[in-house]
Structure formats: C-alpha cells, structure tokens
C-alpha cells in the first residue's frame, strides 16, 4: 500500500482510539483487506479513489463506532476519562510541589539577602563565630 493509503488507515485508526484495542485492530484488518481487494482490481488507483469508494476516514470511523454496543463504548469512554483524570491529578500535584519548592527557594533567598536568615544563629555547645577573625587584609 502506498504512503497515502497508510496515512488514510492511520487516520481511521486515530479516530477509533475510543474502541477497545482488539476490536479496533480487527476492524482495521478487515478494512485493510477490503482496500487490498479494491487495489488488486485497480493497481494504479489513488488514495482519492479509495476515499471515494470507502468514504472519508471520519465517516468510516463513525460507522464503526456506531456499530459498537453502547455498553462497550461507554465502558471504554469511562476508562479513558478515569485515566485522564488520574494523569491530570498527578500533574497538578507535581505542579503544586514544584511551586512550593520554588516559593520556598525564593523566600529563603530573600530572607538571606535581608539578614533574616538563621544561618548565624548560635548552635548550642559551639561558640559563636568571631566575624572579625575572618576579615582579610
């Protein structure tokens, strides 16, 4: 099959992503077989002619999806929705953590530059640092 026909089939495949995988693969195998029979009779045929005979990818996909039992389609849609919700929750949680870390980093830098840092606070058991002793000449 030509590149254009593979692109045609890929487009049908893309529009069938809500189908359960096994059913989607068997539908595509059948479509590929039918197109192959069409090509056997017309070796020089173009993707446009295939499209004219079988229909646009969105029409084929819509036809396939209409033929699915409602329960199966709804189950697949709910599963996709659950997976998307889970991924969005993870991304949102990561974004919040990163924001908090960034915010703390900014605050820490601000506090240090304004002398509010606790880096010079005395530690029990260790004498405070004599800053004059570290002056360089």
């Amino acid at each position, binding site marked *: 099959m030509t590149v254009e026909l593979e692109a045609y089939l890929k487009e049908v495949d893309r529009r069938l992503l809500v189908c359960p995988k096994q059913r989607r693969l*068997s*539908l595509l*195998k*059948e*479509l*590929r*077989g*039918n*197109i*192959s*029979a*069409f090509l056997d009779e017309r070796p020089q045929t173009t993707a446009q002619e295939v499209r004219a*005979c*079988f*229909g*646009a990818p969105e*029409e*084929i996909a*819509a*036809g*396939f999806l*209409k*033929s*699915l*039992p409602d329960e199966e389609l709804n189950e697949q849609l709910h599963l996709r929705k659950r997976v998307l919700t889970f991924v969005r929750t993870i991304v949102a949680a990561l974004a919040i953590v990163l924001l908090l870390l960034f915010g703390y980093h900014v605050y820490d830098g601000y506090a240090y530059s304004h002398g509010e840092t606790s880096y010079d606070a005395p530690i029990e058991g260790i004498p405070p640092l004599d800053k004059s002793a570290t002056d360089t000449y």
Partner: protein
Amino acid sequence: MPHIIYDKTIIEILVLFLLQHGELYAYSIMKLISSLSEDTLSVMGGSLYPILYKLKDKGYITDRIEIIGKRQRMSRVYYNLTASGQEYLQTLLADRAMIQNSMEKIFKNAEGGVDS
C-alpha cells in the same frame, strides 16, 4: 454518477438479499450493489460496516474470518445469512411492499386534489 444509498433499511435489504446467494465480504457486497444496479446505486464503507455488524450482533448473519497478507495485517471477513436472517429479510420485503402499495394509493387518491 451512481446514487449513494444512506437509508439503513435499504442497505439491510440489499445485504441480506445478496447473502442469500452465498458468502460475501464487505467490498464484494459494495461491488455487487454497483454492478447489479448497472452503476445507478452505490453504498459507502462507512454506511455498510455498521449495518453488517448490527446484523451480526442480532444473529441475522455470521462471519468467517480469513487472515491474508504476508504480515497478517489484513483479513477478509466473509458474511453468511442465517435462518433468522432469511426470516428478517422476508419481513423487511413484506413491509417495503406494503409501504409501496400504501404510497401508490395515496398518490392515486390525491390525484383529484387533497381536502384537509
């Protein structure tokens, strides 16, 4: 330019009628509709596939899958008519004949004018 059929009932009748003569796969059904109508009618894949799968789900037809091609990426699905499919076809044909008769009566009776 052939007339493209979208009417589900007509496609069902044609599919079941053609399957009376032996097993066929989707593209061969499309070809037969075109050739037997002398290129006056055609049906698109997007209209045909949902009809085939619904008829199969209802038990009016069965399928036989043959994997073809070198990398087994293609299959040819042959459909066959069942006994209940044959009965359903007769029901559809009888309904269609009844509607056709009724419509002819309407056309005939309305010739003298329509009085609402």
